């Protein structure tokens, strides 16, 4: 399909230019006037060439205001790291990061010139940013990430953590998965000391998609496929990420993080119903409808982004199981599998707190702010 070819072509082009310039050799520009500028594509060599030692504790988190990003910031702060957060300049900035004691720097992934300044004095980059629904996936997730990786190379970042999607290389027809897969390959070839985590799904998504509509007594839209997703709590992902920073065991690896049990949409809705003690009004959207809508929208230029989002429907119809064996991962990260939160525990806690808060507030009709 048109888009995927475009993506991989882009990756191919970038890689190609790098190879011709000597990807892992120093690139010497001609000594024109005064000084020679030595640009190393090899990160450790670059670090050795410069003089300022970077403290090993400093971490830059890109996408720190997101679901996963804020948990990583909290975890890293608690473990003693110096955390810096890359956020976009906003009229109402997110103050909670500053309130926790992290430093906030302004930058934008779509503006590559703003990135290198944020990387000064940083030892580790954790990249958990992704495009918002109203933004272009290509600009943020591909071009922005490429710019970030190249800046990290130039600045000699010692460790790079990237978050991708489960089995993204197997679904090139979904644009976001295609982009993630290309980014993974680009990161591998960049020479940075990287670790890629492939995620299946977050508990917090279950809250937004199922638990809240059930509480609000709105209808819940589910699909009738049998795809099983192993949801994982974002706090556990944050714990695993910070654990990966401690040792070198995970460098150069691509690890899949999946939850303890894989659930289908129907099971999740039933679980939410049981916990909220209500019956959900479930509307099932058949997969063929999504495919049809997508093909309709794709034929229109202005709806191409919308069509991209519906491309996921193709994946859903395959009825896969999105779960992976985690024993090796737990061993590498030195984490006890018993400490991982299960979906039932999470939802149980959520519902009990929400219902308790509702009783306190005495709310009956207007229950609108339940998102986590």
């Amino acid at each position, binding site marked *: 399909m048109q888009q995927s070819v475009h993506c991989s072509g882009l990756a191919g082009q970038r890689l190609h230019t790098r190879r011709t310039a000597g990807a892992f050799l120093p690139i010497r520009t001609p000594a024109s006037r005064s000084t020679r500028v030595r640009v190393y594509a090899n990160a450790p060599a670059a670090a050795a060439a410069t003089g300022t030692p970077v403290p090993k504790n400093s971490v830059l988190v890109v996408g720190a205001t997101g*679901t996963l990003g804020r948990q990583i910031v909290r975890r890293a702060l608690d473990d*003693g790291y110096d955390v810096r957060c890359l956020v976009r300049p906003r009229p*109402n900035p997110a103050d909670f990061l500053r309130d926790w004691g992290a430093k906030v720097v302004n930058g934008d992934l779509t503006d590559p010139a703003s990135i290198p300044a944020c990387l000064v004095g940083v030892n580790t980059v954790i990249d958990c940013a992704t495009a918002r*629904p109203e933004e272009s996936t290509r600009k943020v997730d591909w071009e922005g990430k490429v710019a970030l990786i190249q800046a990290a190379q130039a600045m000699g970042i010692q460790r790079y953590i990237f978050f991708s999607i489960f089995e993204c290389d197997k679904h090139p027809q979904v644009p976001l998965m295609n982009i993630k897969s290309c980014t993974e390959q680009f990161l591998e070839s960049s020479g940075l000391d990287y670790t890629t985590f492939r995620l299946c799904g977050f508990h917090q*998504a279950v809250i937004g998609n199922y638990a809240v509509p059930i509480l609000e007594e*709105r209808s819940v839209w*589910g699909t009738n496929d049998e795809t099983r997703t192993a949801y994982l709590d974002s706090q556990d992902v944050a714990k695993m990420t910070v654990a990966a*920073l401690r040792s070198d065991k995970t460098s150069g690896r691509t690890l899949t993080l999946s939850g303890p049990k894989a659930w289908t949409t129907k099971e999740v809705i039933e679980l939410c119903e049981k916990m909220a003690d209500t019956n959900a009004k479930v509307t099932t959207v058949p997969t063929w409808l999504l495919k049809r809508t997508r093909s309709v929208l794709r034929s229109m230029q202005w709806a191409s982004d*919308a069509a991209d989002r519906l491309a996921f429907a193709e994946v859903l119809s395959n009825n896969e199981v999105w779960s992976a064996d985690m024993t090796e991962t737990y061993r590498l990260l030195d984490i006890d599998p018993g400490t991982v939160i299960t979906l039932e525990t999470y939802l149980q806690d959520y519902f009990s707190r929400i219902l308790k808060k509702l009783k306190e507030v005495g709310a009956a009709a207007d229950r609108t702010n339940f998102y986590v």
Partner: protein
Amino acid sequence: MNVHLRGRVFGERSSASRSHGSRRPFSGAPCRVPPVRSAGSDDPETQNVEALKEKFFRANSSEGASSSQNTPKDSASDINLNAINPYELGRQARQAFNDVWEQLSRVTSPTRSFIIDDVLQVEVDADFQAPQAAYTTVLVVGATGRVGRVLVRKLLLRGYKVKALFRNRAGVSKDAIPDSVEVVEGDVGDMETCQKAVQGVSKIIFCAGARSAFTADLSRVEERGVMNMVKAMQDEIYRRAKRSGAKFSPVAKRELADFNSRFHQARWDVTFVGTAEEAAAAAEGRREDADNGYGSRLNTAEAVITEDNNLLFEGNLTTRGAIAEVGARLPPTLPGGEHRTAGTEGVVLRVRGDAHSYLCILETDDGYRYGARFPTREGYLTVRLPYAAFRSEYQGQPPLDPARLVGVNLRYENRRSGPSAAAALRAAKGLNTRNMNEVASEQARDQKFSLEVDWIKALPGGTEPEFVLVSCAGRSRPGIDPSDLRKTIEAKRRGEENLRISGLGYTIIRPGTLLDEPGGYRALVFDQGDRITESIAAADVADICLRALHEPEGRNKTFDVCYEYQADENNALYELVAHVPDKRNNYLKAAVASLARNT
């Protein structure tokens, strides 16, 4: 039709609430389809198409539904008018489409979640919850240091209110401390700054250290700094207690003897001078010799009040084994009405001695006496005697119950044995026998004693420590001079002493060499006694300080902590108990519960 994806618009918040809010003018949510179960019996295709049709052409079909929900008749006409208003129709259609689109996109990306900023945060993770944090203000002294930085962040993450004492030197940037921390500028050696810093604070964590090894710096930060903080904290707690209407401050020391007041000056007197046999005789009520007792020329002791309002207890005991005691019986309640010694944990004395060791003896109302020996030095000294240090005089006495104290005595014993026995002792030790002059002068020194007492107070008990002090274990790190190290350690120990005699509940943590590593990774060893050798991450020390704030097991304890290590074969006299700093469990409680209190 304009396809505008529902979601975050740049610069705007909470579009979800906005969308929900704007749906209120309609009588019902546009998504309120009749309950549809995803059962296999119905034909899903026609049902869903029906549902979609209903949405898109809601204007026509919803009149029935909406008017059925709006009972008043007159509003029905409004809805009819609204139904034919083209703007209204357009808005409804757009709303419906947006809602359908939102649901579709949510369905197709089931693993993607959207964050709205003004959220109801629900914390499932127990790691970052501290229920006491809501009403505790913590003052962090040394918030720019290695431990202080991490500690401030950890406190903020758990919701404490944090105040920091900040010196604002050149070279320390202003953004070293996060904005949500209240900063008091000044030096810890300055009493006024300390008083300002302590206002509104309920706990203090002192992790400051002198930046150099100059004696002036060391004494200013480690000794005077701790002393100032302690005094300021006592004042603050007193003020707070007064404001809340209590009659006395819960951390104030209770008065047992204060020789500034005539009350105590009149009561204290020499109670006994003589030998042990005479004491036994007097106890049994026998009077063998009328000349014996106080009039004996062999042993004399007297107690006078000096001009400085101190009690001077001096005398001369020539007989071997003679004792002299001065003391008083106390009424059990203080003038304010509260019990004098109930709930206290120990006794503090301010004395000026003469390098002899004295005994402090407490009497309870059932006649039992308990004694604790303390050494003195030339010059003023504050002595702290926890009740656990008091030994009972006879076997089989019940343990000391502070609520039943009725008397305090100070005793001097001439324990020096006779000249021949002394010579034998020295010969056994392999030392040369000395001539008679030396022996005589020694004996004379032991016979004369002189003790000035300024005050005697009782230390209050409590549940949680108010002051957490980060001291040092005494291990050197690379790049430090051994003499500097010794000076630093001594200054820190003096600071610790200042804290212990203050009456505040304390926890003193002595970490090994601090490392700039992330914490929470390796197991920690908690120990008492000067045995640890390993280093520890500053972040782990910060975690321990944090937990010690609300740990009653850690109150009034001093302990060393470092990374776990294997003891070598020779020193394996004790078992190293290591605790993994798991954030969920309260490892500190288990670790510290087995350590000795009031150390």
